[in-house]
């Protein structure tokens, strides 16, 4: 079987499974967030944290709850990392240095999972399990909760109530993430991913040297790393490490875990606004962009020119032999199209244009299908902007699923849209202006790409590493930490603000004069707007990086 055929089968089989689960899993997610009953465990938790599960919140309260919860998470994780040496299962590791602890705490609380450290040589098992893995669950749940609040804004009318953050958080974690994680862990263990509390095994290598092979609770962390589009690996080598991702079928399964929630959330949108076709339209835009991106990445990698790639048939540098070019290219595209940031190959070694694709995927704002929750709200914001321009062209005040897009709505959408590009561009420029780009291994366009990639990944809360750059200096840890923090929470505030503005409105009934937002024309337009806005923003920077190198 040729590499190309294998690549096509991988993508096609994923597409089939995702299509099959869209309805049932989407409906399940809908029932989770729309239900009114609480399980006994949930009631216990609400009592414990003192939450009235029946009380709903305005957008301001919802936002403050998100921020408060995240702040507590951040402080807790920071303290955890700093006190690691005094806790159990530290495996003898020291406390994590302050700038790395800050960067890591921010990184996991913001669902970024940018890793300025090497997991197996920095963190003990307790920190990995009770610190990092917990954030993998809750930061993912926060993203989904915010997306659901936005959808409620579209679905509800004449209210300021957007649901209860604490209820959303608990339900999503307990009813969605946890059960799938348990099942997924078992599947991964069957596939050969390790799961133990071993402090490490010393082995003698073939060459006669000794090597410590770190074991640990890998499978349980791997599953939520993918399911919650987190991406923070147990090992520094992330999903290219054979203990995290041993075979091509675990690779396939991990891709499925990454994609299943983001691709099913549009169903929740469709169900909640009472028009499933709106969900189909959104998922269609995501799918089109994803398929184009995956295809291009594969094409660039498989046909990459240069002496070495041509000699061996393709660009194999930096890729695992057990995955091959296509599995690596697809994994790179999928993890950056979502906000996963896991890697099973080294993007730095990709062909220039092949390496540009993950970068562009993140620049798109991670909306195809994007991180859990974040992808949906990002895409809905783009839909609002598209509707605004397109809606004018049909001669009416623009409206999306019955809600008018006026000054207030467009203000929040514009602010949302401004944040990440600004962080990326300012961060990158600052690195070059201050000379901090010198930690990049390369000079010239490739070195520029390494810096640009780091800021793009952090600001978009992806966490994917291009590699080829040292980022655990205080300047980098601080700058990237700020990008992650602002890149996560400012957009969330604007999303919730938009949700509040939408929920206040009375819906406008659809008529023949209403712009239909479920037809192919709109789907194409939304995809076009997404690509064009990004191209216009980042083309100059890309020209000096991957384009200069690859054209």
């Amino acid at each position: 079987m040729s590499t190309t055929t294998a690549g096509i089968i991988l993508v096609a089989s994923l597409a089939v499974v995702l299509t099959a689960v869209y309805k049932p899993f989407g409906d399940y997610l809908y029932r989770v967030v729309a239900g009114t009953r609480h399980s006994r465990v949930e009631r216990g938790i609400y009592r414990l944290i003192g939450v009235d599960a029946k009380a709903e919140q305005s957008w301001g309260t919802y936002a403050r709850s998100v921020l408060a919860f995240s702040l507590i998470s951040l402080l807790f994780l920071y303290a955890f990392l700093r006190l690691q040496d005094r806790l159990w299962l530290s495996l003898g590791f020291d406390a994590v240095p302050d700038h790395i602890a800050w960067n890591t705490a921010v990184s996991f609380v913001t669902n970024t999972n940018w890793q300025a450290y090497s997991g197996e040589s920095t963190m003990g098992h307790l920190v990995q399990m009770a610190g990092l893995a917990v954030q993998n669950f809750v930061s993912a749940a926060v993203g989904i909760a915010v997306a659901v609040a936005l959808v409620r804004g579209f679905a509800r009318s004449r209210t300021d109530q957007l649901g209860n953050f604490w209820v959303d958080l608990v339900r999503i974690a307990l009813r969605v993430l946890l059960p799938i994680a348990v099942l997924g862990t078992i599947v991964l263990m069957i596939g050969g991913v390790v799961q133990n509390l071993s402090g490490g095994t010393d082995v003698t290598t073939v060459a006669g040297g000794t090597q410590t092979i770190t074991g640990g609770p890998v499978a349980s962390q791997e599953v939520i790393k993918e399911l919650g589009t987190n991406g923070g690996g147990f090992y520094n080598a992330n999903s290219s490490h054979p203990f995290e991702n041993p075979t091509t079928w675990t690779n396939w399964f991990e891709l499925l875990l990454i994609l299943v929630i983001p691709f099913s959330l549009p169903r929740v949108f469709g169900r909640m606004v009472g028009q499933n076709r709106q969900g189909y339209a959104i998922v269609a835009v995501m799918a089109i962009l994803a398929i184009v991106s995956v295809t291009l990445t594969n094409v660039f990698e498989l046909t990459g020119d240069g002496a070495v790639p041509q000699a061996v048939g393709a660009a194999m540098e930096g890729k695992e032999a057990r995955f091959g070019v296509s599995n690596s290219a697809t994994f790179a595209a999928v993890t950056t199209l979502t906000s996963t940031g896991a890697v099973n190959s080294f993007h730095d070694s990709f062909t220039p244009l092949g390496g540009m694709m993950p970068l562009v995927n993140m620049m798109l704002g991670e909306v195809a299908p994007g991180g859990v929750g974040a992808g949906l709200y990002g895409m809905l914001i783009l839909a609002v902007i598209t509707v605004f321009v397109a809606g004018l062209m049909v001669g009416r005040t623009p409206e999306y699923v019955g809600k008018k897009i006026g000054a207030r709505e467009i203000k929040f959408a514009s602010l949302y849209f401004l944040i990440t590009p600004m962080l990326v561009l300012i961060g990158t420029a600052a690195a070059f202006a201050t000379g901090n780009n010198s930690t990049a291994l390369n000079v010239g366009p490739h070195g520029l790409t390494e810096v640009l990639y780091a800021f793009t990944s952090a600001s978009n809360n992806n966490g994917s590493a291009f590699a080829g750059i040292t980022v655990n200096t205080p300047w980098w840890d601080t700058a990237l930490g700020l990008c992650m923090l602002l890149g996560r929470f400012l957009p969330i505030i604007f999303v919730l603000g938009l949700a509040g503005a939408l929920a206040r409105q009375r819906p406008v009934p659809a008529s023949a004069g209403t712009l239909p937002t479920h037809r192919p024309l709109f789907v194409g337009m939304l995809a076009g707007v997404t690509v064009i806005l990004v191209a216009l923003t980042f083309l100059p920077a890309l020209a000096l990086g991957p384009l200069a190198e690859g054209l």
Partner: protein
Amino acid sequence: MTVSPVVPAPSGGLPSSGPASGGRVGGGLLDPRQLVRALPDAFRKLNPVTLWRNPVMLIVEVGAVFTTGLAVADPTGFAWAITVWLWLTVLFANLAEAVAEGRGKAQAATLRQAKRDTVATRLTGWSPGARPGAYREEAVAAAELRHGDVVLVEAGQVIPGDGDVVEGIASVDESAITGESAPVIRESGGDRSAVTGGTKVLSDRIVVRITQQPGQSFIDRMIGLVEGANRQKTPNEIALNILLAALTVIFLMAVVTLQPLAIFSKGFQGAAPDTAAINSDGVTGIVLVSLLVCLIPTTIGALLSAIGIAGMDRLVQRNVLAMSGRAVEAAGDVNTLLLDKTGTITLGNRQAAEFVPVDGVTAEQVADAAQLASLADETPEGRSVVVLAKNAYGLRERSGLAGSDFGAGRSGEDRNVPFTAQTRMSGVDLAPEATVDGGPSGAARRVRKGAAAAVMKWVRDNGGHPTDQVGDIVDGISGGGGTPLVVAEHLDGEPARTLGVIHLKDVVKSGMRERFDEMRRMGIRTVMITGDNPRTAKAIADEAGVDDFLAEATPEDKLALIRREQEGGRLVAMTGDGTNDAPALAQADVGVAMNTGTTAAKEAGNMVDLDSDPTKLIEIVEIGKQLLITRGALTTFSIANDIAKYFAIIPAMFAGIYPSLDALNIMRLSSPESAILAAVVFNAIVIVVLIPLALRGVRYRPSSASTLLTRNLWLYGLGGIVAPFVGIKILDLLISLIPGIS
């Protein structure tokens, strides 16, 4: 005093369209002389304080100032060329706005002629019915009149201010505001009591109570509106401005943050020669500003306010005054149109269509009796009965029984019984025919015609028994949407009897059904409002093709209907003229008051139609839509333009460092300088080229949202991508011929 009409007759293929013209929205033509006249204003608007309102163009101006400095410091042909074109970009934007405002100014100047200083005769101590001498007359300047003052206006005088007639009746020349030269009647009481300052009394004398404060007359407001003096941004314009500002910030960031990257790249390729675009200090200031100006949405930024002003102007050309831009936008969003049946859907009056006899009577007899009974009926319906009888049965007007002249040869006085609201019938009492000696011969005959119930009661009162057949005919006509008038006669000594029924029909204006079909395709529901009973209303609604109707409508019903529609999230537009329409006009999202209407109605609505043509509501909706479409189309065009500009400027900037980037120079532009200059020049020229479109509005045909989107997306989206590739290439070819640039 001669006052020329405010609004010049529509010219240049701009029919002030009724339904017959298909109601296409056209726009004004751009006269090149207007551009020249607007130039001084365009220069005046370069003042940053004025430009503050338009952040996109303000940034261009700041950029132009910056490059001017650079060009002075290091004068090259390229630097000066860019600088000049940047200034021209700002100037062109100002020109667009100035031209749009200029048209309004011309109209305002005409209006001011009407608002010349008049002297008013103020009456102090006047009360209704007061005799001269019981109050004091004094001459005061019109500008000093206050709300509540009472003034006397006599034939030949100009009415000094807006007010209501409280005594008298007069014919008034309102051409100063409506452009219509035929005089109108204004009288105290009722719905025709409002008079407007600046109009002229032609005959008789009236006493007017002033209802305005000084400086706030209708004409003052008109002047303000057409001049755009206190023009406020409309909600959608504000939203669009926010989006444009956000895009501007992003592009500003993209350009500013490019510099460290450029310095790094140039340092890496140290051997690459310096060019006009890039040296070891990075991208040159001139080129950086050029890139920024090309990327930020200057096209729509330059034309946005002109589009808004021109939209209002298009309304004024149709003799509609919108009291706020918000109302014009709301017109585009309207979901439900409330249309008065009479005058809008049907011709003003019902007309007799048929005489239906009861058994034993011929149609001719019915016609004859009906005509007799209608001779004294001066209502349009009554006249139509006479006319139908003449046309259909050859009965001469004024013909009496047996061919004898009406009123001649009678033994006594004939008596007309005029129609009154109480009796609801009219008729004639004929004295018995005279015998030769003057004595009565035959019986006296009384004929009646009127509302079915009233006439049937009259028959019964006079000993007759209306047959069931009459009831059936009446029901049949009502069910068909007609109005039945029963005709009966009473000969002395015999029981009265019904002769038959006159079928009065509403005549639906031609072309209305097509118009309503269009509305439906646009997603607008039309609701007919009528005082008729439900069956009549339904029949007319079906014939006219409206979606719904409100029968036996009272002002309260109207208001309730509007509230109900709004409760469902719909926007409602309506027209009205009476005082009792005022609450509904105020409640409606778009309330168009007729100029003939009362002051209360004009105050309550947010538009006034000077022609008092209720059909115009449909045009207003189309103008609102066209306004929004023009904005959307030019925004799309503006953003789509950026793609081509990138393909011109990025290789021009960086191909010197990385020759591989020359692959992006797909237009094969001749040199970096000419590529950048071509992009800047294109960016400036496109504004001027699009001024006519901004003023005229994009072509609009009523159709579904999908159709509109497809069309506009191809035209302005794809066109916006393709046009600059062609334009920049052509400009580059021209520029490359200029020595010293390339």
